[in-house]
């Protein structure tokens, strides 16, 4: 049973790594065509803020 669990985790992580690697390669190809392209955010730490001036939200309150 333990070997099946380890195999499941391994296969899942391997497929995820493969998908991430493909996305990374495609991102490099997009950058070769359009160097000014701003990439896709992958997680919440590198999200793009659309707020131009942070004081605007404060003034509305």
């Amino acid at each position, binding site marked *: *049973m333990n070997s099946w*669990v380890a195999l*499941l*985790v391994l296969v*899942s*992580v391997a*497929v*995820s*790594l*493969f*998908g*991430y690697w*493909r*996305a*990374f390669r*495609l*991102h490099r*190809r*997009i*950058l070769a*065509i*359009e160097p000014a*392209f*701003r*990439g*896709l*955010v*992958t*997680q*919440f*730490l*590198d*999200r*793009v*803020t*659309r*707020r131009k001036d*942070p004081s605007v939200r404060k003034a509305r309150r």
Partner: protein
Amino acid sequence: MKLEDFILWLLSLFGGLALCGARLGWLLFGVAPEPPQDPAAFGLWQRKRRWLVFSEISALPAFATISVTVGKLRAWPVEGVILLSMVLGALGFAFFLDALQTLVRRRMGLDGASSSPQVAPSAPIGGSVDPAP
């Protein structure tokens, strides 16, 4: 493996899928920047988004298995197992890859200057983005 373990694994999988789907929707359709103008680059952009979704969703069985295993080893209640799976799904595979990359870089002393976690981990796919407020 008992049937209740499998049901718990399935519940963890769906819990992780719910939050992972919410995060992917927010990232891909909520805060995503504009697509590239060039038609060839636009096709690549669509393929890149698709592969990113494959990558995140295929990590969910590993997350569910990890949470069930940790829950069994630590004798957690069922809710704790599902909550851990949901947290892992919400953080996502890219989060852990970026965290690993940051740790390795810091250990090797490659980027001593960029100590902020907003800029350094986003290099592979995020590119140059503004730091979070």
